[in-house]
C-alpha cells in the first residue's frame, strides 16, 4: 500500500543553523504517528514543511506516492492536511465561532463572492453540532477568544484543526495548556480520527500520552530521523535514549 505521506531526505536551514538534515517520515492512511525529539530536534520545522508554511531546501514530500510542493498553507489544506501549530494561531479579537470558521466562512449563495453576507446563524449551529460530535464542553460561539482561558483556547484550536481535516491532522503539542481532564478529551479525539480515515502526526513531550494513542513513534535528533518504535511502556527507555541521544551522533558534541 502506498503511504499517505512520505518525507524523504528533508533538509532545511535557517541561516547557518541546519534545522533539518535529511529527516525521513512515513505516515499511512489512518495511522497515528508520534513525532518525538528534544527541543531543537527539528520537529516543528518538519511539520511546518508538511503543512506548507515554508518550503524545504532539499528532499521531497510525497502524498499518495506523488511528489508534491506545498507553496502555501492553503495548498496543504487543499490536499486535506490541517496543522495545529504550537502558538495555536487564534485570533483574540474574533469570536469562538469566527475563529473556528476562519477562511471557511459560510456565505449566502449570491454572486457577491467575498462580499456576500456571512451566514452567522448557520455557522453557530454548526459550531454547536461540532462540539457535540467531538464531545467537548460548550463554548459560547460569540465569546471573544481573547477573554477565554488557556484550556478553552486550546480546545478551540484543536477543534478547528480536527473538524475540517480530510486526510491528515498535524498536532504540535495539543495538550500543552490543558489539565488532566481536558488532555484526556483531546487524546480521545485523536484516537477516534483513524475511524474517519484521518491520519495523525502528533508531537508531544508526554510519552504517556503518546503511548495511549500512537501506533508508532518516530524520533528526530538534530534534524535527522534516528529511530522508530512502538510507543509501548516497554520501549519507554529506548525511546528516551533515542530522544536525548545516548550515543552522540558523529561530528557533533553535546555539552
Amino acid at each position, binding site marked *: 500500500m502506498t503511504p499517505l505521506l512520505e518525507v524523504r531526505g528533508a533538509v532545511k536551514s535557517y541561516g547557518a543553523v541546519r534545522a533539518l538534515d535529511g529527516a525521513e517520515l512515513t505516515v499511512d492512511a489512518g495511522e497515528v504517528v508520534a513525532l518525538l525529539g528534544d527541543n531543537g530536534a527539528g520537529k516543528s520545522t518538519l511539520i511546518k514543511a508538511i*503543512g506548507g*508554511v515554508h518550503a524545504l531546501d532539499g528532499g521531497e514530500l510525497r502524498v499518495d506516492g506523488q511528489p508534491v510542493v506545498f507553496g*502555501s*498553507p*492553503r495548498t496543504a*489544506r487543499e490536499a486535506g492536511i490541517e*496543522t495545529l*501549530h504550537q*502558538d495555536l*494561531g*487564534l*485570533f*483574540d*479579537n*474574533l469570536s469562538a465561532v*469566527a475563529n473556528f470558521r*476562519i*477562511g471557511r*466562512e459560510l*456565505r449566502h449563495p449570491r454572486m*457577491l463572492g*467575498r*462580499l*456576500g*453576507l*456571512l451566514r452567522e446563524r448557520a455557522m453557530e449551529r454548526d459550531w454547536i453540532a461540532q462540539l457535540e460530535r467531538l464531545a467537548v*464542553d*460548550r*463554548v*459560547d460561539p460569540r*465569546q*471573544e477568544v*481573547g*477573554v*477565554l*482561558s*488557556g*484550556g*478553552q483556547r486550546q480546545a478551540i484550536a484543536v477543534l478547528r484543526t480536527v473538524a475540517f481535516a480530510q486526510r491528515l491532522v498535524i498536532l504540535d503539542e495539543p495538550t500543552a495548556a490543558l489539565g488532566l481532564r481536558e488532555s484526556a478529551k483531546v487524546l480521545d479525539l485523536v484516537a477516534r480520527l483513524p475511524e474517519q480515515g484521518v491520519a495523525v502526526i502528533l508531537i508531544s513531550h508526554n510519552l504517556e500520552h503518546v503511548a495511549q494513542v500512537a501506533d508508532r513513534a518516530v524520533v528526530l535528533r538534530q534534524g535527522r530521523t534516528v529511530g522508530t518504535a512502538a510507543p509501548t511502556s516497554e520501549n519507554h527507555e529506548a525511546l528516551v535514549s533515542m530522544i536525548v541521544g545516548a550515543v552522540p551522533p558523529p561530528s557533533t558534541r553535546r555539552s
Partner: protein
Amino acid sequence: MSAAAVAHAPRGDRATSLGLRALQAGPVLILAVLVVVMALLSPYFLTSRNVANVGFQASFVAVLALGQLLVIITRGIDLSVGSAVGLAGVVAAAWAGTSGAGSLALFLAAGLAVGTVNAVVLVYGRVPNPFIVTLGTLGIARGLALVLADGQTRTGLPPVVSTLGSGKVAGVPIPVLIVAALALTLGVLLGRTQWGRWIYAVGGHPEAARRAGIPANGVLVSVYVLCGLLAGVAAILVAGRTDSASPQAGQLLELDAITAVIIGGASFQGGRGRVVNVLAGALIIGVIRNGLDLLGVSPFWQLIAVGVLVIVSLELDVLRGHLEQRLRTRAASA
C-alpha cells in the same frame, strides 16, 4: 463557557464584562456628554444652523476616518490621505471643463491612484512599514498637487461639486448624508461579510491569517486602495465647500482622521475598531472645535483639548486590555 455558566458567573466577572461593554460604547458616551455640556454652555450650540455647521466640518474628517479605520484595523496607517485630498482637487480642477460626472470621476480616480501606489509599494514592493511608505506618498502627492496647480487655487469646477459639498436636502447637509451612506455600507462590509471578517483576522494575527489560507496581501491591497478612494470622496466635499481646489487643501486632515479613529477606540495593535465609534470620534473632534469656538476659547486650547482626548482614549484601550486579562485569569481558575 455555557450560557448557564455565564449566569452563575461571580459578581466580579459580570462587573468586568459590563466594564468591557461600557468601554465599547465609550466614544458614543463621550460624544453625548460633550453635546450636553456644550448645549448647556452655549444656547447657540443646538440651533439647526450650528448643528449643520458641525455636520459640514465633521464630514471631511469622518470620510477620511472611515478609510483610515480599515487601514488601522490591519495594523497599518495611511498618512497620505490629506495630500490625496489636495491632489484630487487639483486634478479635477485641471480638467474643469469636463462634465459633472467626469469631474467626480477625476476626484475619485486621483484618490484611487494614491491608494493604489500605497498598496503596491507596501505589499508588492515589500516595504514592511506603512508609516514610511505613506509618509513618502504624503510628500509626493502634495508636491504633485503644487506642481500641477502651479501653487495656485483653481476655480470653475462643475456645479455638481459644490452641490455635493455644500448643499442641503431637507435641512440636512448633503455631506452628512454621504457620510451616513458610506458608514452604513462600510459597517455592513466590515461586520457582515467574509472580506470584513478577514480584515479583522489580518489585523488580529497576520501570520495565523496566512496560515488559515486568507489572502492577506489581497486584503491589505483592498484596504489601502479603498482608503485612497475615500480620500477622493473627501476631496469632493472639501472642494465643494469652497467651490475651489487648492493644492494646499486637506493639509493635516490625515492627523484629524487618525485622531478620530483612535478616539473611536480602534487599537494601533490592530484587529479592533468599529464604524459607529469612528463616526463618534469624528464628531467629538468637530464638537470640541465648534463648541470651544462658540465659547470664544482660543484655538490653541482646542489643540490641547483634542490632544488630551487622544491620550485618554489610549488609556481606555490599556484599561480594556487589563479587564480582558482579568476575565482570562478568572476563566482559567473557574
